[in-house]
């Protein structure tokens, strides 16, 4: 192939969605292989590895994110139907959910408040700007909810998307180590805590612990989305008054 042919091929491929889509799947499959080789260890997080590989390739080839996303959007789109599909494992736990409704509700309120207040107080104490603090506050909930909340409060929604993903990856990586320290063994409790603190990426991790943990993570993710959307606009004025 001559240099001219190659340039022509690159111009064609980089304008088509095929490349972004294929790269996403290849990066994920490679990350998944590494994750499996490491015996499914939570620190070898497949989302983190795939993202790092992709960012590296995009940076080396000088491809901008919008061009990449033209292809990757087909994978991104599946987040919607996958979220709806979480109703099925959730239904599998319906008997336990009925019995545990009150403890789960109380835990949700405590956990959601902790996530918002601690992020604000620590970030504020270390000198983060108000716009960043607002963007950080709802980081434990799923991206579309967090972005909508931040937009309404005058933060930076695109920064929130990045912080939400980082929170999910971090939560998925450290949760099981923390549970070991705390002596938390019940998969339902583990799942609920991961889904509450680390939304969908945590839920994906919880499904690797067990189907039961995954179902409770899905429940926590969905209900914390609602609770955080309602709590954040109400909590932030108090926080900015007390910890300005």
């Amino acid at each position, binding site marked *: 192939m001559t240099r001219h042919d190659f340039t022509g091929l690159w111009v064609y491929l980089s304008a088509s969605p095929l490349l972004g889509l294929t790269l996403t*799947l290849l990066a*994920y499959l490679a990350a*998944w292989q590494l994750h499996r080789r490491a015996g499914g260890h939570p620190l070898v997080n497949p*989302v983190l590895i*795939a993202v790092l590989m992709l*960012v590296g390739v*995009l940076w080396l080839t000088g491809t901008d*994110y919008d061009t990449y996303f033209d292809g*990757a959007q087909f*994978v*991104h789109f*599946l987040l*919607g139907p*996958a*979220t*709806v*599909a*979480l*109703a*099925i*494992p*959730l*239904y599998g736990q319906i008997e336990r959910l009925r019995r545990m409704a009150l*403890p789960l509700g109380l*835990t949700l309120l*405590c*956990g959601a408040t*902790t*996530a*918002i207040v*601690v992020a604000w107080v*620590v*970030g504020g104490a*270390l*000198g*983060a700007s108000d716009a*960043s603090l607002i963007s*950080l506050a709802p*980081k434990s909930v799923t991206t579309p909810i967090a972005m909508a*909340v931040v937009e309404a409060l005058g933060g*930076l929604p695109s*920064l929130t*998307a*990045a912080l939400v*993903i980082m*929170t999910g990856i*971090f939560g998925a990586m*450290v*949760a099981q180590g923390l549970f070991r320290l*705390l002596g938390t063994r019940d998969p339902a*409790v583990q799942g609920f*805590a991961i889904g*509450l*603190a*680390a939304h969908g990426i945590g*839920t*994906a991790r919880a499904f690797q612990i067990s189907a039961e943990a995954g179902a409770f993570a*899905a429940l926590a993710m969905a209900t914390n989305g*609602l609770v955080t959307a*309602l709590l954040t606009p109400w909590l932030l004025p108090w926080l900015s008054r007390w910890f300005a």
Partner: protein
Amino acid sequence: MLNAITLLLVFQLAGEVITRALALPLPGPVLGMALLFVTLVIRGGPGKSLHDTAHGLLGHLSLLFVPAGAGIMLHTDRLAGEWQALLAALVVSTLAALAVAALVLSALLRRRGRRP
């Protein structure tokens, strides 16, 4: 499988339409999940096709976050100035939320377990 995928999309669409029409502070797919859950409770569970399709889709849930995750590259400048404060806040608050949720739920379930 086609039936199951169509059903998931119909519930997502219903969720999108209702959240927008009523200006609810929820994304459409989350309401779609709640509507499907209620439907399953009324109908007494998912059929085999829906069950299998859902598990296939959720088997690689992590993959679906990769495109959004790569969006981090758009924020390197913004993160550069305040990364220590943001990272510390993110790490401490996520650990705190995990610990509070795990300890509170364990304690409440243990208390309930002691009562007959």
